[in-house]
């Protein structure tokens, strides 16, 4: 199907920098429009006379394009490339058009022109500031079910995409001598001066082209050259220098400590057919020796009745649309200003053929040169006049003009109204850098004052409005000098902040301050009347400045109106804090590569593939993937675990214990160090023997545990819990480096160097023995809790005889690269003899049957070794270890502490819930006095009943007592018992 879009009626031949030869087409609300390459969606729509592009947030009022930049509060569109690449709330004023772009208006139903929600506008007096706080209080339950869903549907802007983002996002760190933010005249001058001085320079600008305010210029000359051309020449010069990196379409959105600035570079959003390998956006984290902020200034609207109709637009925006994009925003244009700069827009449009119906100037005596030029062009200027109203639904049709000091109203027909209330320096990034701002009362603006970092503000963000001055200031900031001759630069003099005529105290008109959140002048006054006296409170009560535009155009107006209502000076009322990001940044840019498998590292043991092949179900333990259980056939988890436990206890089981933390403690003072770090005594541990060690913190609570083997007088092989290895090593290093720096001890993390194959069960020795060389594994030569070095399958091993199941057990440590091979060999022998692989669940059950604790499950950071029934592991004769003094604290030696005990349910088939609370008297009134909780609970197949461990007040004294576990539907009676349920004499450790 071929379709020729209608011609762009408002495109002015011969104006602008875009080439009429390069056309593209896009759709807006289903209609196809033509555009020129380089157009924004806003400029392209305006070229077709489309001003109505959205509905406002709260009142659903028709809204048009107000600006030509990132400050845009109204023209927020849903922009899509295809079915999966769709983004809501895109500013039409910054989104470049590409061929095939699909733009859709938001917050309207059923259509943009006919919107049911607009009824809110008629009932606006029922939606004052603080409306939500006041209205939706009762009943409380209605908030979730009724109010919130309704409000969310009616308010809000675009809808979030539902598909996963198919694009890629990149990330780069950079260092430079000089980071220049903003590529306008001052920024370009700074960059060139820095570059010429040999500095490494990065220059970023949020627009596609460098030039900043000069892109909107028509008349100004710099050194005899048109200003726009001067900017291009400067950019070309910079581009050619090896020590300069130019980043267009790149927004500096956050200024952090020590001159680190985050930039978001948009790489493909303007392309019709981006390279599929190209990232969509790139996050730059730049660390700069010096930052030059050349962020410019943002024009403000004027606050008067109905100042929000489509067709009402900032004067500077209209000028940029004409001079850069070649688009006239109207044919019969009114201008309402309090600042000289709007005249330039009016003159340019008049010369381009639009009729300037009148320039309404709120001031009594504007500059006479401007008045003379208006006279030459036949443009009527009404000084000391105000616009006090507008009409027009989908586009402004008339303005009401009144003399400032009389009430004689005159209605003038227009199709666009340019407004200018002066300029607000963009101090956002400076303020984020913690620089202080100072109020410039003469010009009604806050300016950068004392910097907190090595950064310099130049140009209009620093209040330097004259072009030659801005260029000189820019160059000086980079240690250079630039003297340029400037002719015909526009004057920026004049301002009006706060309510204009007709919107002052006592008026009821809708004079918008914050377009995006639909906040009017009278809302601010209401907030003050209702007791909000700080601007931070006014802001939150009215939501002014809290939309995604962060009040770039509105904050100063809100502040001025609040100050007036409070009868205070503006600086006394205060300024709200500027926070990152300067403009919205996509989640993709922040998340970057950290998605899917790269979101968080996954650690796998050398035997992972074997477990996978053998049907293991895995569980996450920290970053580790651990085999949880190995179901056979149609087994469920319970059946698999029962079988794994039974086979291990009857024959043997093989278990991957590689995730255990392992630290080698070596040196002449190693034993002294072990004595310090662990509660146990280590002097008498013979070489070749192992001991279960407990580590406390200074407060006396259990921090970690594990089996330690002594390989030599000066060498210990220390194991830690799977999750505890890093913090245990950190704590060891801390004591070694800072408290005992003279001790000769070296600590090495070897967790990933050793694969660990645990074989437990009566046949464990028989399975392993033939594979081992150089170690006598007999019970006499290698008793329980021993460690030997030798080889297995020809591979060096540290073979430990120990048990976490209560059966005869060995842990075969082999270099990780041989883990899978040795596992295969052990499995090949064991399988023939009836051995089973078992997972972490069976391991948990078997250790609980033996009453072995798991730190972090049966302890919680408030459990001492005494509480855990491990007093035997504390060296009674020791005069120091970490925790020795903490353990002597009054609370830790008091009676009634929660102590670890076993629980047996009266009904042996009931398995308690872990975490369930325990009470002494089940008939007491609610809330009951809870005396403890269940920490571990399993079904024990070997015992034929459930088992549990619990921390119970005075538990060690309660052996045999009946306690109760009240649950939602029943109360479960339990008997307190010793936590060692299985083989209390330990005979099975010998097979």
């Amino acid at each position, binding site marked *: 199907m071929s379709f020729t879009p209608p011609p762009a009626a408002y495109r002015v031949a011969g104006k602008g920098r875009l080439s009429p030869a390069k056309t593209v087409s896009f759709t807006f609300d289903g209609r196809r429009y033509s555009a020129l390459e380089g157009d924004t969606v806003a400029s392209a729509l305006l070229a077709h006379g489309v001003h109505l592009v959205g509905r406002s947030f709260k009142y659903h009022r028709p809204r048009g394009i107000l600006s030509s930049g990132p400050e845009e509060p109204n023209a927020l569109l849903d922009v899509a490339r295809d079915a999966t690449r769709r983004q809501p709330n895109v500013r039409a004023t910054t989104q470049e058009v590409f061929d095939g772009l699909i733009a859709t208006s938001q917050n309207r139903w059923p259509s943009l022109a006919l919107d049911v929600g607009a009824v809110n506008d008629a009932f606006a007096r029922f939606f004052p500031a603080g409306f939500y706080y006041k209205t939706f209080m009762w009943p409380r339950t209605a908030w979730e079910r009724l109010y919130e869903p309704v409000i969310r549907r009616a308010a809000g802007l675009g809808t979030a995409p539902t598909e996963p983002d198919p694009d890629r996002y990149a990330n780069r760190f950079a260092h430079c001598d000089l980071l220049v933010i903003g590529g306008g005249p001052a920024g370009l001058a700074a960059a060139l001066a820095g570059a010429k001085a040999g500095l490494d320079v990065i220059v970023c600008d949020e627009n596609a082209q460098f030039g900043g305010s000069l892109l909107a210029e028509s008349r100004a000359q710099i050194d005899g050259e048109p200003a726009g051309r001067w900017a291009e020449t400067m950019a070309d010069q910079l581009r050619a220098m090896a020590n300069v990196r130019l980043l267009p379409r790149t927004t500096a959105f956050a200024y952090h*400590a*020590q001159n680190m600035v985050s930039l978001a570079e948009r790489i493909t959003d303007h392309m019709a057919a981006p390279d599929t390998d190209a990232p969509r956006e790139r996050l730059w984290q730049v660390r700069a020796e010096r930052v030059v902020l050349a962020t410019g200034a943002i024009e403000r609207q004027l606050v008067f009745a109905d100042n929000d109709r489509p067709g009402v637009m900032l004067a500077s925006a209209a000028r940029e649309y004409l001079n850069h994009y070649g688009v006239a925003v109207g044919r019969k244009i009114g201008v309402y200003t309090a600042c000289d700069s709007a005249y330039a827009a009016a003159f340019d449009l008049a010369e381009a053929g639009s009729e300037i119906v009148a320039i309404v100037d709120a001031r009594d005596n504007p500059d006479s040169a401007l008045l003379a030029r208006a006279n030459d062009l036949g443009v009527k200027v009404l000084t000391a006049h105000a616009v006090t109203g507008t009409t027009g639904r989908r586009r402004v049709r008339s303005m009401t003009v009144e003399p400032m000091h009389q009430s004689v109203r005159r209605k003038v027909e227009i199709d666009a109204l340019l407004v200018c209330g002066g300029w607000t320096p963009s101090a956002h990034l400076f303020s984020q850098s913690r620089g202080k701002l100072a109020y410039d009362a003469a010009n009604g603006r806050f300016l950068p004052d004392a910097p*907190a970092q090595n950064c310099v503000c*130049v140009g209009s963000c*620093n209040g330097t409005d004259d072009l030659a001055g801005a260029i000189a200031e820019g160059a000086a900031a980079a240690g250079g000098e630039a003297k340029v001759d400037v002719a015909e630069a526009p004057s920026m003099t004049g301002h009006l902040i706060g309510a204009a005529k007709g919107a002052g105290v006592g008026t009821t008109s809708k004079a918008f301050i914050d377009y995006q959140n639909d906040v009017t002048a009278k809302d601010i006054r209401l907030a003050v009347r209702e007791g909000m006296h700080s601007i931070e409170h006014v802001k939150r009560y009215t939501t002014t400045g809290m939309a995604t535009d962060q009040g770039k155009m509105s904050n100063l107006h809100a502040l001025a109106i609040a100050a007036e209502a409070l009868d205070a000076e503006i600086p006394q009322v205060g300024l709200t804090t500027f926070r990152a990001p300067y403009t919205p940044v996509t989640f993709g840019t922040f998340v970057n590569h950290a998605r899917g498998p790269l979101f968080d590292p996954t650690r796998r043991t050398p035997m992972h593939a074997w477990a996978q092949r053998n049907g293991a179900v895995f569980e996450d333990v920290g970053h580790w993937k651990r085999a949880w259980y190995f179901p056979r056939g149609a087994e469920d988890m319970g059946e698999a675990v029962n079988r794994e436990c039974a086979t291990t206890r009857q024959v043997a089981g093989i278990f991957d214990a590689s995730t255990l933390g392992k630290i080698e403690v070596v040196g002449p003072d190693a034993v002294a160090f072990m004595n310090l770090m662990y509660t146990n005594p280590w002097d008498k541990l013979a070489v070749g023997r192992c001991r279960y060690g407990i580590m406390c913190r200074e407060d006396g609570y259990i921090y970690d545990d594990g089996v330690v083997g002594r390989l030599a007088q000066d060498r210990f092989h220390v194991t830690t819990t799977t999750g505890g290895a890093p913090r245990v090593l950190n704590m060891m290093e801390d004591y070694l*480096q800072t*408290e005992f720096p003279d001790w000769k001890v070296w600590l090495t993390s070897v967790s990933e160097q050793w694969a660990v194959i645990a074989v437990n069960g009566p046949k464990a020795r028989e399975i392993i023995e033939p594979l081992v060389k150089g170690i006598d594994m007999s019970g006499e030569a290698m008793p329980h809790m021993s460690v030997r070095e030798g080889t297995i399958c020809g591979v060096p091993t540290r073979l430990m005889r120990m048990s976490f199941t209560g059966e005869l057990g060995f842990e075969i440590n082999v270099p990780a690269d041989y883990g899978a091979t040795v596992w295969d060999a052990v499995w090949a022998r064991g399988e023939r003899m009836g051995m089973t692989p078992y997972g972490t669940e069976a391991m948990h059950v078997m250790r609980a049957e033996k009453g072995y604790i798991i730190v972090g499950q049966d302890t919680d950071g408030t459990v001492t070794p005494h509480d855990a029934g491990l007093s035997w592991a504390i060296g009674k004769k020791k*005069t*120091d270890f970490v925790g020795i003094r903490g353990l002597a604290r009054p609370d830790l030696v008091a009676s009634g502490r929660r102590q670890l005990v076993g629980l047996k349910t009266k009904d042996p088939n009931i398995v308690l819930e872990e975490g369930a609370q325990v009470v002494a008297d089940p008939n007491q009134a609610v809330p009951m006095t809870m005396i403890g909780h269940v920490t571990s609970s399993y079904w024990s197949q070997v015992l034929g009943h459930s088992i549990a461990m619990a921390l119970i007040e005075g538990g060690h004294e309660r052996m045999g007592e009946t306690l109760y576990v009240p649950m939602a539907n029943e109360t479960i009676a339990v008997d307190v018992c010793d936590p060692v349920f299985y083989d209390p004499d330990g005979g099975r450790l010998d097979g």
Partner: protein
Amino acid sequence: MLLIRCPYCEEERPELEFAGAGEAHIARPANMSDISDEDFEAFFFIRENQKGIVFERWRHIHGCGRFFNAARHSVSDKFIVTYKAGEPKPELTDEQIAAVAGATGKSGK
């Protein structure tokens, strides 16, 4: 993200490489098991945590692994100096403190 100078590596490295480790210059009593409850409280629980200059420990955990000390301003987050573990608490000059206390000087013009 802060830049922190590791006194062992003798260069500034990004904060990502470091881990904070609490207040500095709290020595573990040599006669640990003999100290009073009050002394233990002072040693283990009580911290200055003041607004202004703080002396704190850091570990270059993803670098050389060494613990060291730093003097930093807790409002401006600026470091005055970092120094090796075991070195005495440095005497700070008024100029050093003023230099990190907050915004300084005049910008631009």
